[in-house]
Structure formats: structure tokens, C-alpha cells
């Protein structure tokens, strides 16, 4: 109960951080700052994973998102740096409409939760989920796993090809 309460506390804390940083991500003028807030946001998502007992995923989240993707973003921002640190308008004239749409989306999804019947099963997750995930990946999901590796390879090659200066 305490754990539950603590976790709830953490949840709200993380949620708050996450939502605020996410809002910053989409609204700040300086894109570089946005990237930093993205890092924060992604960290908080990792925290949520932990609250959801997905430790491996949290680790992966930190490693990949915070460690790789964000850095990649920052690199990209750096490479296009002359746009990065200016106080220029970063958002277009869709803002009003977007707010309405997002609000509509939010309201409908939230509202639809109430209509939905959730078959909640109150059983624990498998212990040691890293081990379990590894096993499942290598057994049941071995084919998607391999396919994803190919996707990654393709993405890698694609990125190289695209980003090269000279024509191949």
C-alpha cells in the first residue's frame, strides 16, 4: 500500500515532468531546448516503464532513446545549426486548429475509456523480465527479431546513402 502510494506519487511526479517537458518539446522556439526537454521527457517515460515493472524496457528506453536517438537529434540540430539558436517562430498557423484537434482527440480517447470494458487481470508479471524477454525473443519472436535486424540494416544503409554528399 505504501509501495502503491509511493508508486502513485512517483507516477504523478513523472507524469507531471513528462507532460510539462513534452509540452515544452512541442512549443519552445529554440529547437535545441526542445531536444533537451525531449531527453527529459524520455527519461520520465523510462521511469513510467519502471513503475510498470518493465525494467528491461526502461533500460532500453534510456539506452536507445536518451542515449542514441536524442543525441542523433542534437547532432542533426547541430548540423542544421543556423536555424537552431534563433528566436524564430517554430510553429505554423495550424496552432489553433491543432489545439482543437488535440483536445478533441484527448477528450474522445479519455471519454472512450469510460465506455470501454477492460478485462483487468490482477496477476503478476513474470519475474526477471529481461530473461523472459530474451527467451521469448529467441523463441517465439525469433522471426520478427531477425526481420527487425534487417530493417535496422536497411535503415542504416539508407541513412548513409541519403546523407552522403556525393552521388553513388
Amino acid at each position: 500500500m505504501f509501495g502503491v502510494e509511493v508508486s502513485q506519487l512517483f507516477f504523478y511526479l513523472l507524469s507531471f515532468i513528462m507532460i510539462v517537458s513534452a509540452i515544452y518539446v512541442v512549443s519552445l522556439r529554440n529547437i535545441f531546448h526542445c531536444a533537451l526537454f525531449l531527453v527529459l521527457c524520455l527519461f520520465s517515460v523510462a521511469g513510467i516503464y519502471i513503475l510498470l515493472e518493465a525494467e528491461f524496457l526502461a533500460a532500453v528506453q534510456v539506452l536507445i532513446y536518451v542515449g542514441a536517438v536524442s543525441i542523433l537529434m542534437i547532432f542533426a540540430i547541430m548540423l542544421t545549426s543556423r536555424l537552431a539558436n534563433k528566436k524564430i517562430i517554430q510553429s505554423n498557423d495550424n496552432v489553433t486548429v491543432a489545439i482543437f484537434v488535440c483536445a478533441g482527440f484527448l477528450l474522445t480517447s479519455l471519454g472512450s475509456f469510460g465506455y470501454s470494458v477492460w478485462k483487468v487481470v490482477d496477476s503478476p508479471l513474470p519475474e526477471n523480465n529481461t530473461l523472459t524477454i530474451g527467451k521469448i525473443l529467441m523463441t517465439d519472436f525469433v522471426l520478427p527479431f531477425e526481420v527487425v535486424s534487417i530493417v535496422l540494416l536497411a535503415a542504416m544503409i539508407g541513412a548513409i546513402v541519403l546523407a552522403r554528399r556525393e552521388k553513388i
Partner: protein
Amino acid sequence: MMLQYLALAAILFAIGIFGVLTRRNAIGILMSLELMFNAVNINLVTFNKFIVPDNLTGQIFAIFVIVIAAAEAVVGLAIVLLLYRNWQGIDIGNINIMKW
């Protein structure tokens, strides 16, 4: 409790949508997309925990999503660079060569 997670994910997704819709900067859009991916991942993990706790398929899916998101980011950023190189800018509003 699950609804709170779902609500969180929904909020995060909505913010992601807002970002996708409003950012001029292509990198900003990519970042917003990451937010949406994360919202989805939160959902996946949440459902895994509360509805099918017996196996970890939700988490496995989340992992795949992360992988795909990473690939997407890589390719996306490469495209952004290309855009930048060819258009002297990455304002997605100007890149409307598909306009009528």
C-alpha cells in the same frame, strides 16, 4: 490505476500530435513523432501489465516499436539533412512541392 496510465499516454500522444501538426522545423516534427511513439509504448506496456500479465508480448512489441522508431529517426534525420542541403532550410511549410 490502468486508466491513469492510459490517460497519461493519451495526453502524451495528443501533445505529440500537436507537435506534428504545428512544428515548422522537420526535426521538431521528428521529435514529436518520438513522443507519439513513446505514448504508444506506454500503452503497450500498460496493457501488458494490466491485461495480459502472463507473457511479455506487450513489452516485446514495445521493443520492436523502439527499434522501428530508432530506424525511423535515423532515416528521418538523414532526409532532414538532405533537405537542408538541397533546400537551404528545413521548414516543412516551404517544402510543399506536392502542392496541387
